[in-house]
């Protein structure tokens, strides 16, 4: 198996693990972690697939990943503060209707 394919599959694994966690977990902090693992997987797939030529990797997907990283940190930061407010209002970091 070539290197790019291996890392692309690892990326897929990260994505799937994150997705599984996102669906299963109710705890919001865990959901946020799961989303971050998912996005790490997506970025890995991008960079792995940029490596399919023998020379240096294609810089365009790398730039896209850098953009994506910043976006994902931004969203995570906003999410974490929102989670804190949910906990303060409801006493638990779980979305009310999900609490079963």
């Amino acid at each position, binding site marked *: 198996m070539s*290197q*790019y394919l*291996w*890392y692309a*599959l*690892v990326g897929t*694994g*990260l994505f799937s*693990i*994150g997705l*599984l*966690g996102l669906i299963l*977990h109710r*705890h919001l*902090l*865990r959901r*946020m*972690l*799961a989303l*971050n*693992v998912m996005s*790490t*997987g997506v*970025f*890995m797939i991008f*960079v*792995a697939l*940029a*490596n399919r030529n023998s020379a*240096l*990797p294609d810089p365009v997907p*790398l730039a896209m*990943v*850098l953009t994506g*990283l*910043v976006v*994902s*940190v931004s969203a*995570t*930061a906003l999410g*974490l*503060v929102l*989670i*804190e407010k949910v*906990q*303060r209002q409801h006493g638990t*970091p779980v979305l009310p209707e999900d609490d079963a």
Partner: protein
Amino acid sequence: MTLMEYLFDGLLGITLIWLAARAVFAQSLFGAILSFIGLGMLMALAWVRLSAPDVALAEAALGGGVTGALLLAAYNRLHHPTSNQMNQQDGH
């Protein structure tokens, strides 16, 4: 590629998957966060292997560093809800 490199990529990939699984499913939330930070650090290594030093640098600083700090801070706030609320007055 040499055998060493194959081995290294294989091991790195498996470790990444293992850390990801821990970051999502570890019993303790704190452990999960630590695993996620570890994942960020090792991801930087993977980016270097994929000849993407720019992304490696950003991942180490953002993915592992800043996101890790944000997660730990949020964890702290969730678990010590009494010591916040320094001041409720509203600014502009």
